[in-house]
């Protein structure tokens, strides 16, 4: 019972955070709302007994990615998003219905196919299990991710190092 209550607490926080992400005009608020969502998701992972994923999730998303977002927002000193001129503002009337239809379709799949299955006690989310899987069966993808990160790092350094001239809008 306690778990169900926790699930709903986290779920409501996550959805609230997500709604705030897409509705706040100030990007800093958006980023902080994203942190809220991410923390709630970490809670959900714990409820799913994926402890390792939960903690790595916090370290990577909350600890690094959103900090980077904040860093860039501050670096560029973006204050508020102005009201859109031109045709872009009609996107709201296109995007929201599309999202709702998508939600309907996804939910109908979830309801139909996975009734009467529940979270069960398992130990597959522990560090030992994931570590063993990562360094034996999935060692190649794991190593490839290191190359991916290296390439991304080089790309980021190159992008930020190059001299760019400001072109008028």
């Amino acid at each position, binding site marked *: 019972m306690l778990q169900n209550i926790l699930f709903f607490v986290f779920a409501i926080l996550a959805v609230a955070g997500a709604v705030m992400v897409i509705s706040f005009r100030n990007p800093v608020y958006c980023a902080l709302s994203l942190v809220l969502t991410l923390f709630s998701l970490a809670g959900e992972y714990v409820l799913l007994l994926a402890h390792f994923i939960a903690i790595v999730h916090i370290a990577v998303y909350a600890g690094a990615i959103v900090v980077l977002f904040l860093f860039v927002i501050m670096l560029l000193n973006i204050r508020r998003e102005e009201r859109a001129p031109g*045709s*872009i503002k009609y*996107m709201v009337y*296109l*995007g929201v219905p*599309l*999202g709702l*239809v*998508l939600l309907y*379709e*996804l939910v*109908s*799949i979830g309801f*139909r196919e996975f009734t009467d299955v529940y979270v069960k006690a398992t130990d597959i989310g522990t560090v030992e299990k994931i570590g063993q899987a990562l360094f034996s069966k999935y060692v190649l993808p794991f190593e490839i991710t290191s190359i991916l990160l290296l390439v991304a790092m080089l790309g980021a350094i190159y992008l930020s190092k190059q001299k760019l001239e400001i072109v008028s809008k």
Partner: protein
Amino acid sequence: MEHFIWLIPLLPLGGAVINGIFGRLLKEKSGWIANLTMFVSFILSLRAFGLVRQGVTFDGNLFEWIVAGKFHAPFGVRVDQLSIIMMLIVTGVGFLIHLYSIGYMHGDPGAGRFFAYLNLFIFAMLMLVMGNNLLLLYLGWEGVGLCSYLLIGFWHEKESASKAGLKAFITNRVGDFGFAIGIFIIFSHLGTIAYSQIFAQTDVLVKAGVVTAASLLLFVGAVGKSAQFPLYVWLPDAMEGPTPVSALIHAATMVTAGVYMVARFNPLFSLSPTTMAVIVSVGTFTAIFAATMALVNKDIKRVLAYSTISQLGYMFIGVGVGAYAAGIFHLMTHAFFKALLFLGAGSVMHAMSNETNIEKMGGLYSKIKITAITFMAAWLAISGIPPFSGFFSKDEILAKAFAYHPIVWVFGTLGALLTSFYMSRLVFVTFFGKSRVEPKVEKHIHESPYVMTIPLMVLAVLAVIGGFVGVPELLGGNNGFEHFLAPVFEGAEANLHFAHVSLGLEYGLMGISVLMALGGIWLAYLMYIRETISADALANRFHRTYTLLYNKYYVDEIYFAFIINPILAFSRWLWNFVDSTVIDGIANLLGKIFILFSYIYRRVQTGYVQSYAAFLVVGVLAILAYYLLQAF
């Protein structure tokens, strides 16, 4: 033998790769790398030669090269008596020329590139002579053509050099075209490209009636590569390249590829008397034709170039009449003395600040003694003065030619007279008489460094004594060279019939050719040293002949008028009308159609990322909807 034989071509290739990649860094040091690879290659060739002398030959595949369906081309080599001779010439003379090049290319900024090309050339030439199938032969054949092009146009900043390179390449293409078709004919009838299988099945070609066609087409390739009439025009122009290149490619090795090829295919060629007759005719004509042009030319290297063409004609006479061993013998001695002549000419040019006009030389003997003496050794050899090497090989060919048909002998001997005359003219005008050197140049005349003169001396020794490997029985020798090569030409023997020539007649013929040689020298002596006969007066007296010869029979002009210009005009028409009007028109029309359509569709492309995302979502929704409806 196979455990080291593959190193022989691989080493020059390695040298080429190293020099090609690091040439810019190594600069002149690349010469030593090139020389090292050549030297080791030569030593290995000598070792192989030792084995071949004991009767050990090798014909096998080192690895599979190309496999496509039924066709498979192994990377196979054949080392027998014929190819080992060629390998020794290529690596030995090649090594000496490499050594010489170190001195000659000293200070040239492109030295690394030069040595890379030179090594690559040696590799290609070795592939040509060592291959045991037609494809490798063709690889080498085209490879040497490519290197020749690259090296003729080595000083590509000079327009005449790059044009000469192009000319050589295009002229060679004409011959190679015929050569390729010849290969196709053989392959389509026999289904194989390996020599051993071809030679074993020549009767199939005879039955199919294509033996003459196939051998003639192969000979067309030889005509192009070995600069025979009518495809000889590129060789004189090839003198635009650096002199060691002229020595290596355009005298000693590459141009002899045609002779080698005919000799190698002796079982095939000897089956077709028609082809043999054509070869003899072309060879004879070229020998005389080129010699006449050499008579009046004033450029030291061009005279040598015409002389090369003429000598190649002799070799073709040799292989054409069926005296394959004699042809190869002449090939070898020619390699020695012609390489020497070119290197000597290079040394002269080195001394003369790159002057090539012999009218601006004269009296050089005392100033560059080593060059002059070695040059004269080669002169005596090419003129056919006994006991220099050229005498034995040329006489061998002439003797066999007489047996084939006396008229061939007559022309050959006439050619010998011309040869000794123009070579003597060259020597006398260059090294003796009054100095006509420009004073500015005269101050700088100096002997070349040892790295250049040592190859000259080695080659001079070879030019003098090289003939003794094949002293004919007539003169008390045992004709060892011919016996050594005999196993290769066994297959052809059965098809050849030599008329018997009496002993006395042979001595007579030999005497006549020696007299002719001496006569040519004497004539030149009178004209250019004693000046009792005025060369200018003679030129005036036979004004029209002189002009004709001086302008090289207007062959280049004829080619331009009848072949090149029509092709150019046709190409222009294709360009101006067919390409720019018809084809471009079609392409533009297609483009316009697409522009029309895209004008309508591009309204979808708003440029807003969001709208693209929205389209994407619509697509996802559609797929999901399909999946949902499917399940219900």
